[in-house]
Structures are given as structure tokens and as C-alpha cells.
């Protein structure tokens, strides 16, 4: 039996240390996936914790034939997609007169300061522009370095579906990058400035 299988068996026998080993082994992968999906450190922390609580309570349902990493990432992915769906419903049901504070991020998070490098912010914005299902495949491909087959297992779909989702996601991101670059050209800057003038005049 491999190391993970042993830890799983020991956890099922009630050994808390074995479970702590499992958490240590997967916390970065799970947290990173949640962070890329949700785009906020505090939400990612909550989501990652909830994922491990679910892993603990559903450990008996784990099929040892499956890769443990795929199983645990699938739980995290489902949780994040559910969370985003709930959030969207909540936003839809809220009064539109509310201030748009969530866009400001969460500055009270201390580790946020270190995370908020410019490239990190840019990546966050890029990822958040994608639909959740596309963001998921991008996160699994780039940070988890999974093959198409492994991503398909985590997402619970076929390899060809993953192939097309990755393609669509990359295409959407590329379109955004191209549009952004256009704005950075002298003509684009003038266009931006023009928009600002109009905005100032109207608002």
C-alpha cells in the first residue's frame, strides 16, 4: 500500500495524526485551487477548510482505485462551484442599491498584502473574467499540472469535453489580452481618455 493509502486506512481507524499528514500533503493543492476559483484569500481559506472537513467525514466513500489527489480536488472543485453559484443567487436576490464593496477585495487579510503583487492581481482579474467551469480547468492545468485525463476525472466529464473547455478558456483569455493590448497602443489610450471625458461629462 502506498503512503496515502496507509494514511487513509489509519484515519479510518481513528488516527488523527494520519489525517493531519493527509492535510499537510494536500493543503497547498486544495488551497491554491480554491484561491484561483474564488479569487479571495479569506474565502479560499474557508473553502479549503470545508473541503478537508468533507474529506474527513466522507472518507469511507473514497474508492482506493481512484487517485486520492483526484478525489480530494474533485471535492474542492465541487465546493467552490457550489459556493459561487450560491453567491450569485445571493447577489441576484439582493437589492441593487447596495454598495459594491466586494469589488474592493479584502484588505483586512494580512497575507493578502504579500499576495497582491501586480501579476497576481492581473491573473486574478483574468481568471475572474472566465465562467467558473472554465476557470476550474485552467487552474487544474496550470497549477496542479494535471493531464487531460486527470482533469476529466476531477471534473467528472470526458477528456474531449476538457479539451474543448481548455480551448475555449484560452481563447477567451487571449481575446481579453488582445483587447487590453489594443487599449495600450497610443490610439487605444486616446480612446480611453475620450471615454473618461464622456464619463465625466455625463456623470
Amino acid at each position: 500500500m502506498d503512503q496515502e493509502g496507509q494514511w487513509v486506512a489509519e484515519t479510518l481507524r481513528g488516527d488523527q495524526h494520519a489525517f493531519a499528514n493527509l492535510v499537510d500533503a494536500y493543503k497547498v493543492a486544495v488551497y491554491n485551487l480554491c484561491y484561483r476559483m474564488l479569487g479571495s484569500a479569506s474565502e479560499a481559506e474557508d473553502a479549503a477548510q470545508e473541503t478537508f472537513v468533507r474529506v474527513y467525514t466522507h472518507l469511507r466513500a473514497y474508492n482506493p482505485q481512484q487517485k486520492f489527489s483526484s478525489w480530494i480536488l474533485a471535492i474542492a472543485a465541487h465546493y467552490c462551484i457550489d459556493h459561487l453559484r450560491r453567491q450569485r443567487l445571493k447577489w441576484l436576490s439582493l437589492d441593487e442599491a447596495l454598495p459594491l464593496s466586494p469589488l474592493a477585495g479584502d484588505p483586512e487579510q494580512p497575507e493578502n498584502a504579500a499576495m497582491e503583487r501586480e501579476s497576481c492581481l492581473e491573473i486574478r482579474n483574468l481568471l475572474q473574467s472566465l465562467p467558473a467551469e472554465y476557470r476550474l480547468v485552467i487552474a487544474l492545468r496550470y497549477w496542479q499540472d494535471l493531464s487531460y485525463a486527470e482533469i476529466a476525472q476531477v471534473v467528472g466529464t470526458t477528456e474531449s469535453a476538457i479539451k474543448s473547455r481548455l480551448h475555449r478558456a484560452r481563447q477567451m483569455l487571449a481575446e481579453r489580452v488582445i483587447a487590453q493590448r489594443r487599449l495600450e497602443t497610443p490610439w487605444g489610450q486616446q480612446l480611453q481618455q475620450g471615454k473618461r471625458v464622456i464619463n465625466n461629462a455625463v456623470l
Partner: protein
Amino acid sequence: MQCSESSEWMSLHLDGLLDQEQALRLEAHLAACEACRQEWEAMRWLSSFLKAEPVAAPKPDFTARIALRLRQREARRRRLHSSIGVLIGSVGLWALAGAAVLLLFTMLWQPPIRVVLLEAGLALINDVLSTLAVLGQALYAAAYALAVRPALWAQAFDGKAWLLLLGYAFLALGLTALWMRIVFQRRRYVFP
């Protein structure tokens, strides 16, 4: 090659999934098509940009906080179980105590006390007590008869009334046993 196909191939090429011939065909198309070349450059730039981004890590006390959360969860579960146990156990004890009180009352509900109460004018209480006494007497008579004449057991066992009585006794005993078990478990948990 169509532009839509070329776009799909670009994605595969980034993951190293095109064979040499396909890669050459893609390159040929890119050399000829300005729009696709622009898309390919953006995709390639993005890919290296994402690859350069380090993995985000949680706070150092992440594992400890999960352990704490699991302990809290377990404590909540135990509390819930023990309160259910105490509730069921109390019902069991009350059921047993009720039967015992009824029997005791039947034995004591003899003329001297009865007359005293009746003279005090407590008619309503008397009615209620009399009804209870009838029930208690029936229970007492049944228990007495069964104790004195063992031959009755077989007959009683056929009757539905006896089954009812047996069921009641089992229920009361079972609930009490469960309660005792839970209380002892809890004691072991609190004082290991």
C-alpha cells in the same frame, strides 16, 4: 486549415499534444493568417504568464485549525447524542416509575385512607384516583395471578392484553438500559 480548427490546435500545442506534422501545419497556417497569429501570441504569452505564477499557500496554522474544527464538530455530535439519550432514558424511567407508583397506590388505596379523603370532600380527586386504582388493580391482579399459578402463563401468552403488557415492560426496560449505557459512556468521556 480553418481558423476555428487552428485555434483548437493552438491549445493542444501549448500542452504538447500535437505531433510533428500537425505542428508544421499549424505553423504554416499561422504564417499566413494575421488574426490567428495574434491569437497564438496572446495564448502563448498567457500560458507562460500563468506558468510563472507561484502556487498560493495557506496560512501556516492551517492543519491545526482543521484539527480544532474537527474536534469541535465531534464535541457537538456527542452533545447531541447524549441529549437524545437523556431524553429517551427519562421517558423510560418515567414509564417504569409510573407503573411502580400505580402498583403501590393500589396496595395503599384501602378503606381507611379512602374514607378520610372522601370525607374531606375531594370528589374529583377521588374519581381520578379510583380510575387509576382500577387500572392498578387489574395490573396487580394479573401479576399476582401469574405469580401464584404458573399454568396461567401459557393462557396469558395467547391473550393480546398480556402481549401489550409485555411490550410495555420491554420498552421501559430497553429505554432505561439505553440511557444507562449512554450515561456511562459519557462519564468515561468526561473522566477518561
